[in-house]
């Protein structure tokens, strides 16, 4: 660690990390605005939309919940896919164990910041101290801007008319596509996407709303086999 860091003044790389963390937060804030609008369109109150962003704080799961509810699904049908989407946060949390600092109580608070962006920023650093700084700065920045964006979107959403006239229902699949695309390069990912998507669509006329999406999880089995073959090859 450098002298400047000991003196409490951030070193140049730390400042660059903080700047990046702020930029990521602002970008996610814009994404939070669309979540706020869609949550209101699905029938949530502005207080519920904001509470979800502050307390649940994991984007894809939140979009899944309001998407299923907007499509007529019940609470169980909405929560199950949301929780399955959130399981990747458990993977992130486990992968961050070597860089997290502080006592168990402090780590329990830091755990709320475990999301896609903070994990990606932490993994991009070589030095463990920098990684911890990147995790905290990105997590706090995204948490604040995501919540503020949700509030702005929820308040704006209350003044809008029929969500279908504005094409808001078309925002859901577009948002999920933007989330899915960067993950398709992983081994087994194309199999997972094609099998899961086909299964869900085939089940729409047959089972209650929300369940087709949950059933798509079965596709991890052929996908994991395909991934193992790809790794072994």
């Amino acid at each position: 660690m450098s002298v400047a860091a000991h003196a409490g003044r951030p070193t140049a790389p730390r400042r660059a990390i903080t700047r990046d963390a702020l930029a990521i937060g602002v970008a996610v804030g814009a994404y939070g605005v669309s979540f706020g609008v869609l949550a209101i369109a699905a029938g949530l109150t502005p207080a519920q939309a904001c509470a979800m962003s502050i307390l649940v704080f994991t984007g894809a799961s939140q979009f899944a919940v309001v998407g299923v509810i907007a499509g007529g699904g019940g609470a169980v049908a909405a929560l199950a896919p949301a929780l399955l989407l959130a399981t990747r946060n458990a993977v992130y949390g486990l992968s961050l164990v070597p860089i997290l600092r502080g006592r168990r109580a402090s780590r329990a608070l830091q755990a709320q910041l475990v999301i896609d962006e903070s994990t990606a920023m932490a993994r991009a650093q070589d030095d463990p101290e920098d990684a911890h700084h990147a995790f905290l700065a990105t997590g706090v920045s995204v948490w604040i801007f995501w919540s503020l964006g949700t509030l702005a979107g929820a308040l704006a959403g209350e003044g809008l008319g029929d969500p279908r006239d504005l094409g808001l229902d078309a925002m859901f699949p577009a948002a999920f596509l933007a989330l899915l695309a960067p993950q398709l390069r992983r081994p087994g990912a194309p199999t997972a996407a094609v099998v899961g998507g086909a299964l869900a669509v085939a089940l729409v006329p047959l089972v209650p709303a929300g369940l087709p999406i949950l059933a798509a999880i079965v596709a991890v089995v052929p996908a994991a086999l395909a991934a193992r073959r790809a790794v072994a090859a």
Partner: protein
Amino acid sequence: MSWAALLALAAASYALKALGPVFARRQAPRPAVTRVLDLVAIPLLAGLILVQTLDGGERLTVDARVPALGVAALLVWRRAPFLVVVLAAAATAALLRAI
């Protein structure tokens, strides 16, 4: 949505996040485990995309959401920012419904 369901979701999401930071010993999980868990989100996202594009309430329908998804796919492929992708999809569907 009820507050009880919302708080249950918050508690369960936090428990997943806290598993590593609060309870794990100081080592990362095995690569094979990570690889499978990394795949969990993908079929769910693919299912969400297609069902929310084609769902017509217990049957499949093709409407303005299909070309909207096409526009979104083109923009994702061109690496457009998230907000641009989402707004362009909404604008496409809104325009097609207005004419």
